[in-house]
């Protein structure tokens, strides 16, 4: 189950030249505005005809300009969740959801129930889109795309028009979708927080070209390849598991391969999996185990690499039991401490550096389940 793209397309003064293979899971197309993300998904969907190249989904050729193959969008079976929802205003939520099923071989009825349940939109079915909130509209739009029996799903900044509360409302659904369905998802975003939390693969797009592509944790480390605006948010992405809750101090302990993290209390059951992002600018480096320090997250490791990043800063990649944690320091500090590759160090992170934007995956769990 993959989406393979190899296309070139010129639009006005902008040139898109992309070669990319999106595997199962969620592939984030990440880059600043105007880097060609939307043009690329429009080409996959068939809304734009590329000047040259091929688009292949699960082995079926949708576009091959060399052989004059161009499947129109309605024959592609590619679900598309648009930034602005684009629900049909003259239909109810139910009619919107079932629209795609008129045209595809209808799957079993349970599928509809499952998607409605997954997205929590059971109470909205008889309403008109005009009366829904932004977050509700986007959930219905996701459901409509899923129920059209798609071979792949495209999401073009589905959260961009929503405020933080609404985003937090939808993110868990997209995570569940990524983990429960087998169709590849191509997700356009310019938000590091969203990408770090959702993506299994990240492709960084800059000026119409792929700057880098790889597993999320790896790409989030390659600071010099990320767009300038994203640098402040970049850093290590670690998979963790909830180990314990500390009710007295309102903290949660998360166990990762790199070590233990204490973060502000998460509403999650013991054993739940959480993806966390450790921003490079939040990491302090100490050459000996620090004492008399307020920060409580300390990870022992060795310096794997020191990368000058231009200007005053340098990125220190620290190998903590196999996981890489990146620290962004001044070059002055690097010289003062005499840091060099192979040296054992301690990476220190303040607990309060973790916030909603850097912690993933809270599923809906009640307080009683937590206490049990």
């Amino acid at each position, binding site marked *: 189950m993959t989406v393979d793209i190899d296309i070139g397309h010129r639009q006005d003064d902008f040139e898109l030249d992309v070669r990319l293979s999106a595997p199962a899971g969620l592939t984030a197309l990440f880059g600043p505005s105007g880097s060609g993300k939307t043009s690329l998904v429009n080409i996959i969907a068939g809304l734009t005809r590329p000047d040259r190249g091929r688009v292949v989904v699960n082995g079926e050729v949708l576009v091959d300009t060399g052989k004059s193959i161009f499947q129109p969008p309605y024959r592609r079976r590619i679900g*598309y969740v648009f930034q*602005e929802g684009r629900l049909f205003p003259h239909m109810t939520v139910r009619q919107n959801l079932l629209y795609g099923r008129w045209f595809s071989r209808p799957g079993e009825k349970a599928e509809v129930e499952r998607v409605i349940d997954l997205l929590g939109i059971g109470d909205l079915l008889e309403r008109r889109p005009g009366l829904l909130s932004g977050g509700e509209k986007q959930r219905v739009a996701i459901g409509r795309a899923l129920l059209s029996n798609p071979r792949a799903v495209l999401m073009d900044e589905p959260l961009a028009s929503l405020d933080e509360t609404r985003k937090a409302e939808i993110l868990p659904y997209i995570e569940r979708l990524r983990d429960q369905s087998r169709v590849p998802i191509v997700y356009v975003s310019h938000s590091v927080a969203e990408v770090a939390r959702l993506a299994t693969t990240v492709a960084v797009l800059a000026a119409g070209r792929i700057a880098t592509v790889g597993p999320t944790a790896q790409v989030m480390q390659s600071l010099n390849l990320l767009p300038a605006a994203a640098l402040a948010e970049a850093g290590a992405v670690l998979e963790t598991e909830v180990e314990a809750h500390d009710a007295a101090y309102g903290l949660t302990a998360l166990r990762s391969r790199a070590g233990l993290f204490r973060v502000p209390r998460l509403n999650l059951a013991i054993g739940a999996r959480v993806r966390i992002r450790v921003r490079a600018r939040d990491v302090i480096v100490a050459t000996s185990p620090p004492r008399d320090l307020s920060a409580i997250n300390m990870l022992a490791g060795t310096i794997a690499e020191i990368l000058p990043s231009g200007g005053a800063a340098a990125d220190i990649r620290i190998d903590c039991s196999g996981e890489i944690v990146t620290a962004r320091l001044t070059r002055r500090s690097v010289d003062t401490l005499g840091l060099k590759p192979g040296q054992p160090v301690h990476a220190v992170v303040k607990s309060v550096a973790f916030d909603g934007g850097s912690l993933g995956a809270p599923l809906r769990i009640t307080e009683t389940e937590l206490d049990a």
Partner: protein
Amino acid sequence: MDWFALTSPEWTAVQLSLKVATIATVASLPFGLLIAYALARGRFWGKTILNGIVHLPLVLPPVVTGFLLLVVFGRKGLVGGFLADHLGIVFSFRWTGAALAAAVMGFPLMVRSIRLSIEAVDRRLEAAASTLGASPTWVFATVTLPLILPGILAGMILTFAKAMGEFGATITFVSNIPGETQTLPSAIYTLTQVPSGDAGAYRLTLIAVVIAMAALVASEWLAQRVGRRIGPE
């Protein structure tokens, strides 16, 4: 009450007008939809000319339109002759000709109304429908058509009202034959030409006003109803 009672020829004129206006509206709808769609969405040579021809009856003196209809659709006209010989359809001096004249005169209003509503449709919704598997025909039937319904209804009502009032082109093309081509306006005109016709003219005028008002109210009501169904977005 006797004053209100329509004489038989007056009643005939009212009935004829309703029939002519209804046929004119319904028969011109498919053409109106097609041309409005072409003008709103199409990119082809001669679009400006087509637009001009459609709007011509709006600006020409009705008598000129009627005369042109006579030339083209008359028994010896290019199209009229062909239709009469091969399909047995005769327009000149028949009620069908009155319907044709009414349709031609109302056509610009219908096309204009539908064209504006097509141009107002969010094409991104149509793109969304196509990604969900709808072919262009289905996109039109399930998305475009329901969204332009208010425009279509408004166009039909305007055409109907125009057809009820059409006088100049009708009388030029098909004359003023009681029971065949004497529509409500023609009947009023005839009544005003005779000394004893005032009462009849008043009665028919009253009916014309009532029908026109009903059409306007109906169009307003339909627009609101459809508007509410589609809801704010």
